[in-house]
């Protein structure tokens, strides 16, 4: 367009939408990321929302943010600092400005920057920008009043009209980044399919926002993020971690030919898995919202006994409550997937924020010798593969398996290439066979894997009793015999240890002959990989070993940890993985980078910390 002053091409851009938690910032951000993905950009998003459902309007605690990172090539994280901050009120400006650089463009709704709004956000003066020393480029638009004006003939009342202001902001951002609105319009029509008048009002305001930018030349420069076409061919969708986890479980149940059973109790940030699975009854999925966390897990153990792919989903506090029932699955050697979407702790902690502080709990937080395989998903889309593998390992090795994710990857989303289930490995539980009838006992094991065979109630000729009391390995009867207990303890541990053959070797990415190996696990992959990549670009020899299989650890773990001169374990806890590695591999020295802020790592801080270790 000839009347655009200046169009700049960008590699990537980060937009942070922020406002009151009722302002619809998540929807605006979601639409922006999806329409960017449809033109071939890579995307990564992160919602940052308060624990309160509706904090007082305009208050500092009620600010909800949604960060979108879109890139011409691959993006691994939602990004550290934003290029554009949408701040729908003074509280958003005050709390979110820390995510800006001096170059960031700030978009505000001037109608929400009146005296009373400023007071609610604890500003002392009537100039918040001066008060905060902000000298950024600001697009100040009277968004609320333009919505009202735009919709005055729509039949919507004032409140409903102003509720569309998130779409005005989105329209403005779409103009700034040269995004076509047609897909956004389609999304709005689908979202408000039952209220077409609301859909049309939102679409009108969306276009108004776009046109406002265009007509007023709201910014001196607009930007393009071309797609470099680095993404492999195929069909894609936008998916967050909780949905990907749900899909992974559904896929595994289908592959195994089993009913998927979820026993769960609502808990942030895991509840969306219950919501997602509850929808898919047409796939035969059974969800039971139990009376408590304990019953969620206990009912899943019952479902496993009855022959289902049994799952229980929760977050840290729920793991505390489920641990006794998890242990029942350990001693009865029944397959069970325990999903722990980690959040800030201890106790109720920071329910909506992200940490990796449950690692030692899921590894060791049960009475007795209680070996439990643990898998940690590394990104929103990896939740699918991790959930699939958790189910496969549980079913094939007759053991509970913990799947660790966290609030960050559970709520964050990314573009996901649709998987072809045919390419996924078969899932073959060790069912009893007819020829075993007559001389079968419950703890008869496959000599190679140490796995017992699975006889399901309803099968003739395999009636048996299992339970929480120690059993004789030979007869399956209750046994307090000292030698037997020791043997069973060893057999259960060996069974889990032997699973190392069923998991892939650990890979190392980045510089081959690195001076520093960065080690991490789970949801920090994007940030650690970005930091390592940044360091490599600076010519520094750094590599990354990012672990997904935590128990058992991959077979080559020791070889990797003994190969590098310097190793830093970076994790969002006070050093749990480092402590575990030290226990598993003797004689290694590990540096630590630990942060427990409830927020994702900041790549820049990682780069700085790793550089210090390199140069020390």
């Amino acid at each position: 367009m000839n009347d655009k002053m200046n169009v700049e091409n960008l590699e990537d851009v980060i937009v942070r939408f922020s406002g009151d938690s009722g302002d619809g910032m998540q929807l605006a951000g979601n639409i922006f990321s999806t329409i960017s993905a449809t033109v071939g950009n890579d995307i990564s998003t992160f919602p940052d929302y308060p624990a309160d459902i509706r904090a007082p309007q305009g208050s500092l605690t009620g600010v909800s943010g949604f960060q979108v990172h879109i890139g011409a090539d691959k993006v691994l994280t939602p990004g550290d600092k934003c290029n554009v901050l949408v701040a729908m009120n003074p509280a958003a400006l005050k709390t979110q400005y820390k995510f800006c650089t001096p170059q960031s463009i700030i978009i505000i709704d001037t109608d929400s920057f009146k005296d009373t709004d400023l007071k609610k956000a604890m500003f002392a003066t009537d100039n918040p920008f001066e008060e905060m020393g902000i000298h950024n480029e600001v697009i100040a638009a009277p968004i609320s009043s333009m919505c009202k004006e735009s919709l005055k003939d729509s039949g919507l009342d004032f409140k409903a009209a102003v509720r569309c202001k998130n779409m005005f902001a989105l329209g403005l951002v779409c103009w700034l980044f040269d995004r076509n609105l047609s897909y956004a319009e389609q999304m709005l029509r689908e979202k408000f399919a039952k209220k077409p008048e609301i859909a049309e009002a939102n679409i009108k305001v969306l276009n108004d926002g776009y046109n406002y930018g265009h007509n007023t030349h709201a910014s001196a420069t607009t930007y393009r993020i071309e797609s470099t076409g680095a993404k492999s061919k195929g069909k894609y969708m936008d998916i967050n971690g909780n949905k990907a986890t749900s899909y992974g479980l559904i896929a595994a149940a289908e592959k195994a030919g089993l009913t998927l059973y979820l026993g769960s109790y609502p808990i942030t940030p895991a509840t969306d898995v219950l919501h997602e699975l509850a929808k898919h009854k047409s796939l035969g999925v059974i969800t039971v919202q139990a009376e408590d966390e304990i019953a969620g897990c206990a009912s899943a153990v019952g479902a496993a006994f009855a022959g289902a792919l049994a799952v229980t989903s929760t977050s840290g506090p729920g793991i505390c409550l489920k641990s006794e029932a998890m242990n029942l699955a350990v001693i009865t050697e029944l397959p069970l997937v325990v999903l722990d979407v980690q959040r800030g702790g201890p106790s109720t902690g920071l329910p909506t924020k992200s940490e990796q502080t449950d690692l030692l709990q899921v590894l060791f937080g049960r009475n007795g010798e209680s070996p439990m395989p643990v898998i940690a998903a590394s990104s929103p889309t990896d939740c699918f593969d991790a959930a699939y593998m958790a189910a496969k390992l549980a079913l094939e090795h007759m053991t509970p398996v913990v799947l660790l994710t966290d609030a960050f990857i559970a709520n964050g989303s990314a573009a996901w290439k649709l998987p072809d289930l045919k390419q996924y490995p078969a899932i073959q539980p060790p069912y009893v066979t007819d020829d075993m009838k007559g001389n079968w006992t419950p703890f008869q094991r496959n000599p190679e894997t140490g796995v017992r065979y699975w006889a399901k109630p309803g099968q003739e000729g395999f009636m048996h009793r299992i339970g929480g009391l120690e059993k004789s390995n030979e007869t399956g009867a209750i046994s307090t015999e000292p030698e037997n207990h020791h043997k069973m303890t060893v057999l259960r541990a060996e069974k889990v240890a032997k699973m190392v053959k069923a998991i892939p070797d650990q890979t190392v990415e980045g510089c081959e002959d690195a001076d520093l190996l960065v080690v991490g696990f789970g949801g920090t992959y994007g940030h650690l990989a970005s930091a390592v990549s940044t360091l490599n670009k600076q010519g520094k020899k750094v590599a990354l070993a990012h672990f997904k299989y935590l128990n058992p650890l991959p077979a080559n773990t020791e070889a990797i940890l003994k190969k590098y001169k310097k190793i830093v374990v970076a994790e969002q806890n006070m050093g749990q993985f480092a402590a575990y590695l030290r226990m598993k591999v003797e004689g290694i020295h590990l540096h630590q980078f630990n942060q427990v802020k409830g927020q994702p790592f900041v790549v820049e801080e990682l780069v700085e910390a790793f550089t210090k270790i390199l140069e020390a």
Partner: protein
Amino acid sequence: MSETVYTAKDYKTGQPRWCPGCGDHAFLASLHKAMATLGVAPHNIAVISGIGCSSRLPYYMNTYGMHTIHGRAAAIATGAKVANPDLTIWQISGDGDGLAIGGNHFIHAVRRNIDLNMILLNNRIYGLTKGQYSPTSCRGFVSKSSPYGTVEDPFRPAELCFGARGRFFARCAAVDAVGSEQVLVAAARHKGASVVEVLQNCMIFNNGTHEAVATAESRAKNAIYLEHGKPMLFGADKEFGLMQEGFGLKVVKLGENGITEKDILVHDAHCQDNTLQLKLALMEGPDFPIALGVIRDVEAPTYNDAVHEQVDQVSAAKKYHNFEELLMTNDIWEVK
């Protein structure tokens, strides 16, 4: 139903290790007999228990069985029944397992009306841990953990069951083989959560707690066998009966004050309104007989049926039935 005829022996396995004289022995024999009467193949039965003396029971059943963790039997049985509704599930708990540590699961399993046969062996004591008071011990009960007597009121299982919208409640004395078998058969035939309170004696730590119903003679004197459609008569010669008086019940003697059998209440276990059934269930001596038999037996949709009906309904209504079709319900774009 399979055509094979089963006898009590087909459901037996192992050698019970309860104390000699424990009420659990008698109950176990009644359960074996009830299962033979019901004729469900042993491999289609799962017996799921919690922790406690009575929870050892699955080891003596030649069926599928699971001896689980303290208090959670109802929750575990819930998962098993919902995952495989074809199974007949007996959930065995004691008063501590079912009403103390497992109280939450008990009330919710009853409320949801899951088709479980929920057996509550009530000896009003913790036996396995050697003699502490339980949530059904009477106020003032002296035990190892209450040397000066308890200072709390007990649960009355029927009240808890009815409060959780229970549709089936029956009671028997463990030593009463005929009465026990009858209520167990009725419980199994009832579709939905069937709660059976078994009055069971603990020889060691609470001997005599159910003295009033310990023998045929004492039961004739102190208990009333309720049967649906039958007048509520009791006593050695059925000389006593129950009548309604105001908001309550009263015991009357036939022939006195011109009272005949026609004046006596007729039991209605199928009555939706549980008011009178609760009154019957809460009767106790010395003024009233203890009610035995099926006190309430009302049909209602079961949770497990409803779960699977919903799966069928949604399956019929939705267009996606496998993972690949599920993927296509999302906003998809293609990179070419």
